[in-house]
């Protein structure tokens, strides 16, 4: 008559046998080429990850993008790309000329956009000057 303990031990052994069978099956399925390819991918992945995590510019960008206002900007930017591509596709070719330019400049949205780009340029050049001053 099998005791409860014996049953438990048998179950454990069966579990171990199944794990061993799995390991054996994995080993049998492997080949030098598979190992080399996996190691090659892992090696390149590690190098890429290392480059990314040690890239100060990228890390700073990620920090900035963590902030809600930056995320709002990114969302707005994404939507703007989508809307622009749709409008450009539907709009007739621009006629050109001063009149056309005046109509564009009179549009409040375009003026907001120009202000945004001007501010971006101003702060970028200020930041670059700061970095050069500190020798970074």
């Amino acid at each position, binding site marked *: 008559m099998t005791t409860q303990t014996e049953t438990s031990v048998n179950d454990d052994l069966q579990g171990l046998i199944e794990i061993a069978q799995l390991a054996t099956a994995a080993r049998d399925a492997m080949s*030098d080429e598979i190992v080399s390819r996996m190691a090659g991918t892992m090696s390149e992945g590690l190098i890429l990850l290392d480059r990314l995590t040690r890239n100060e510019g990228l890390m700073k960008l990620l920090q900035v993008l963590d902030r809600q206002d930056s995320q709002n900007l990114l969302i707005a930017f994404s939507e703007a790309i989508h809307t622009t591509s749709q409008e450009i596709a539907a709009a007739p070719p621009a006629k050109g000329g001063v009149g056309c330019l005046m109509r564009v400049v009179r549009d409040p949205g375009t003026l907001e956009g120009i202000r945004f780009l001007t501010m971006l340029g101003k702060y970028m050049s200020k930041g670059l000057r700061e970095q050069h001053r500190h020798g*970074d």
Partner: protein
Amino acid sequence: MRILVVGGGTGGTIVANNLARRLSSETRNRKVRITMLSASDKHMYQPGLLYVAFGQMTPDELYRDQKSLLESSIDFYVDPVEKFHLDKNNVVTKSGKTHEYDILVIATGSRIVPEQIPGLSEGAETFYTEASAVQLFKRLRNFEGGKIAVVVGVPHKCPIAPVELIFSMHDYFKSRGIRDKVEIKYHYPIGRIHTIENVAKWAKPEFDRMGIEYETLFNVKEVDIANNVVRSEEETESHYDLLIAIPPHCGMEVIEDNNLGVGGWIPTDRHKLTMNGFDNVYVVGDTTNLPVSKTGSAAHFEAEVISENIASIIKIGTPVRDYDGKVYCFIETGHDSATYAMFNYKNPPDLKPSSQPMHWFKMAYNKMYWTSVRGLL
């Protein structure tokens, strides 16, 4: 602080990359400048040559652009050094440019010198260069039977190479179904079949099992190409149909030309890894005269100590680590099994039974090497 690394092999590259990582803020603030001078714009994974000799790798897999392996803060020039002025802290390169330094790392490596043994260059195959490894593969592939003699010159890079060659040949001919038609005879210069005693003890029964004939105390004197005979200094000789040599090695000519060390090996402090008499000159890898194996792994472990010490000297004014002679060698015991030998100045290797997972570890390392020289592993 100007750090100059001369040589872009395993040791030099790891030192430069580790330093760039440890001193990233100092290099960014221009307080430290790291420069590497190398003879080539390519970096070769030299252990891969044995695989080329058996058709398991192709030569193009062994190379990367040196620049792609270096941290971006390292100034890299392909311009080998011709003059070392250690008393003036500068070197002069082939192009005539002078590079001043505060700390110098010499990592010029070693080279094969088969011409030291009459007839060896013309009469023996080897696998220590790309062309010779491809040539050896072609000879092995066309070999249909007969006697193969393996001879070993001293000193030589990678002490495990002779036994790995034997194991690989045994498996290669077995897989072609002609092992019974091939006689393999191994010749070794000292009184046992390997310089490391525990490797010799481990390899002997393996050789017996595989039917490898061996002759110890065989120092190659000359190769008689006309008669297919190799003779030893001990007045013995062996006939062959195919002769394979582990050629003798020397340090680089530039080291000898500048009187930095006899045979191109620089006298080096075994723990500090500085050149004897010069505290600001470090020596790494094959270039040292240390009593450790001339392998990539020794260069790797030495490079870690050197870079950590240079960085700590810059940061706190004193080195922090000693090199303990650590070496880790994979040993391919055939086409699908391997083991390893790990040892240092105090502890000899204790070899474990070979296994397929260890072989895969080695296969994986062949790819992970590039991660290793970047200073990540």
